[in-house]
């Protein structure tokens, strides 16, 4: 169900795409985590997977682009303008570990709808519909924190999608989940992607990357080394680091 | 929802407070007096008689003599009733009070454990008793709080020629507490103590302690009453304050004081001067 844009603040706020990072640098405790990185998200309809060994800076880059961290140098823009709170609901974020509010599953969704400015009368209906689409309606009234890990993460994704974001960042969403939940999450992502939502995905699961990615960005030591279509990357990676990574070798 | 509940709760509380404050605004005065007088039960007996006659409620703040005088100097009371003649006269001469009136007297008694290590039981000479206590270095619990009782005690030690300050912390223990607390402690440490008769009569935690020395004229304890000076503290309730002073000094009041008994015995002896 798409609610008419005129009835909610959601459609009225302007777009956030493309999400652009220019010459981003981020340091913590004397270490440079992100080193003069240029990145652009939300241009193509396919899922963009960001791959790389631990410590490559992937999560930090997502957080910089989502406005959660401030770069030490460089800038982040959403549709050419600085990130701002009013448009924040157009960017979704799913963390590695789901952060559930101490209330029922449906109340979690109602909360984000309220934050996004959806009128009170509509919130319940929209929330129910969202849960129904993800086949989570039967746990609607359950306290979110007593759900299983898989259910919580599915709920987190449903919650992120409830405000009809233009771009959703997924930071290793299934690394702690069983195959069943992983499959459910991937299915939700594919459906939303087909409906027009853009996705940026960090994953350590190469199978998942192959299943979902249309494009791959490979990062290493705070820099983007490759940015290629997925097929090209998996068949013939352009850099030795990427090649080692795909072979499962430890990349320093 | 929770926010609404809290606001409602607070509003009710504040309303309740406001209402109860309004209700309490019948005529009342604050009388600063001592714990020993209050603990004897005199006020609970006496004041309802006054309130019935005049409709004025008397609120007693019972603290140590020093604190009562200080409170009165701060204007936090309308009438002062204590038993420390020297301090009362100073209060008047420094302009804090209008006029000091002699009100009543009772006496102090020396109490101690039945086993009486200093062998003072049955004596009629308070000074001799104190000399013997000092000589034996028997434990003595002093109020040590600059109260009327404490100052009377110090005068007696002085007359006995004993320098208690130098013995403080050994057999002579300065407690810095009110009469009741001092008695509790004295009983706990098997010590002698000086106490006004009325407090002792009303005291319930005696263990083996009893009155050992009494009747010496030097144990006489004079009470005075005075109005706090409205010239210094304009908010003093002069009319009502004077009303209770007048009543206590009148024949009715003096008779009422005399009629207060504990275990059938008169505790206070009215001696106002006409």
């Amino acid at each position, binding site marked *: 169900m798409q609610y008419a844009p005129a009835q909610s603040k959601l459609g009225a706020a302007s777009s956030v795409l493309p999400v652009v990072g220019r010459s981003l640098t981020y340091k913590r405790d004397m270490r440079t985590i992100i080193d003069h990185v240029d990145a652009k998200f939300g241009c193509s309809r396919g899922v963009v997977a960001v791959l790389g060994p631990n410590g490559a800076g992937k999560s930090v880059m997502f*957080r910089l682009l*989502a*406005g*959660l961290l401030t770069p030490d140098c460089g800038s982040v823009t959403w549709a050419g303008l600085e990130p701002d*709170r*009013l*448009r*924040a*609901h157009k*960017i*979704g*974020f799913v*963390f590695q570990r789901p*952060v559930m*509010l*101490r209330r029922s599953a449906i109340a979690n969704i109602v*909360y984000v709808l309220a*934050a*996004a400015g959806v009128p009170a009368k509509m919130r319940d209906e929209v929330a129910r519909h969202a849960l129904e689409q993800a086949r989570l309606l039967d746990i609607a*009234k359950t*306290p979110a*924190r*007593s759900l299983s890990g898989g259910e919580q993460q599915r709920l987190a994704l449903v919650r992120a999608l409830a405000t009809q974001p233009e771009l959703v960042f997924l930071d290793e969403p299934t690394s702690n989940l069983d195959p069943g939940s992983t499959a459910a999450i991937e299915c939700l992502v594919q459906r939303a992607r087909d409906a027009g939502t853009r996705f940026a995905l960090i994953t350590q699961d190469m199978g998942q990357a192959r299943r979902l990615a249309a494009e791959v960005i490979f990062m290493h030591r705070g820099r983007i080394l490759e940015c290629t279509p997925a097929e090209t990357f998996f068949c013939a990676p352009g850099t030795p680091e990427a090649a080692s990574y795909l072979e499962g070798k430890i990349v320093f | 929802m*929770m926010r609404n509940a*809290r606001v409602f*709760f*607070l509003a009710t*509380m*504040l309303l*309740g*407070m406001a209402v*109860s*404050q309004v209700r*309490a605004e019948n005529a009342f005065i*604050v009388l600063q007096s001592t*714990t020993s007088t209050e*603990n004897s039960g005199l006020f*609970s007996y006496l004041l309802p008689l006054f309130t019935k006659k005049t409709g004025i409620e008397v*609120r*007693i*703040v*019972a*603290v140590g003599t020093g604190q009562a005088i200080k*409170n009165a100097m*701060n*204007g*936090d009371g309308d009438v002062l009733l204590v038993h420390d003649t020297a301090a009362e006269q100073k209060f008047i001469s420094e302009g804090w009070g209008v006029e000091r009136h002699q009100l009543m007297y009772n006496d102090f008694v020396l109490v101690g454990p039945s086993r009486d290590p200093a062998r003072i039981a049955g004596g009629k000479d308070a000074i001799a008793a104190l000399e013997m206590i000092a000589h034996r270095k028997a434990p003595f619990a002093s109020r040590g709080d600059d109260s009327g009782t404490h100052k009377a005690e110090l005068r007696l030690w002085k007359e006995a020629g004993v320098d208690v300050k130098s013995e403080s912390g050994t057999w002579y223990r300065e407690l810095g507490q*009110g*009469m*009741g*607390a001092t*008695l*509790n402690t004295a009983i706990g440490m098997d010590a002698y103590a000086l106490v006004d008769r009325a407090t002792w009569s*009303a*005291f*319930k*935690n*005696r263990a083996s302690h009893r009155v050992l020395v009494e009747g010496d004229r030097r144990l006489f304890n004079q009470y005075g009453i005075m109005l706090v000076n409205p010239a210094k*503290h304009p*908010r003093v309730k002069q009319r009502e304050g004077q009303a209770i002073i007048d009543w206590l000094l009148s024949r009715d009041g003096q008779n009422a004081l005399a009629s207060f008994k504990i275990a059938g015995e008169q505790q206070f002896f009215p001696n106002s001067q006409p």
Partner: protein
Amino acid sequence: MQDLTHAFTTAFQLIGSLDPVLIEIVGLSLKVSLTAVAIAGLIGLPTGALIAVGRFRGRTAAITFINALMGLPAVVVGLLVYMLLSNSGPLGALQILYTPTAMIIAQAILITPIVMALTRQTIEDLKVEYDEQLRVLGRGALQQTATLIWEGRHSLLTALLAGFGRAIAEVGAVLIVGGNINHVTRTMTTAIALETSKGDLSLALGLGIILLTLAFVANAIVMAARASSQPSYV
């Protein structure tokens, strides 16, 4: 030991006969302490939460200061409030010394740091958990604070209970600013102090037992209310 058994019988007798003096002092104790807790909550909860969420210069100093104030001796608070409200003090014209209002003020001052400090710690811990999620939803500082307060409602309720416990049990402050005036400002604790000074230890202990029972019942009510609002354990 005799005093102790006599204390229990005295306590039961007083409760059983619904002794009017007892009801009066219990009523006053509850009125004073509950009002003080309400004030402490209104001031301490939002302030503690804002300090937890906010970032400003001198924040660490403020936190250290508030934590230290938890150790304020009740009698010192009583003395300070007395000096403020005395006829020779700056607020003498209000004429609230020796009234329950003065007692409420003194207790509120005493327990607000407790509520504030515990709130701050609770909210700060929650912030660690929720910070990124709330910010990515575009929540501003005030909205985050409100959400965190709701999220931490159980711990915050405990903070209020801690404040109540401190208030209902203290005697130093209410004794000085209230004056322990019979039928006006006599609470459970000042009554216990009075009976002790009269040497009536079993009555004092009896009142103490009643006070403890009161605190126990108050906590039990809160726990029951919590249980009924929670369908299952989180």
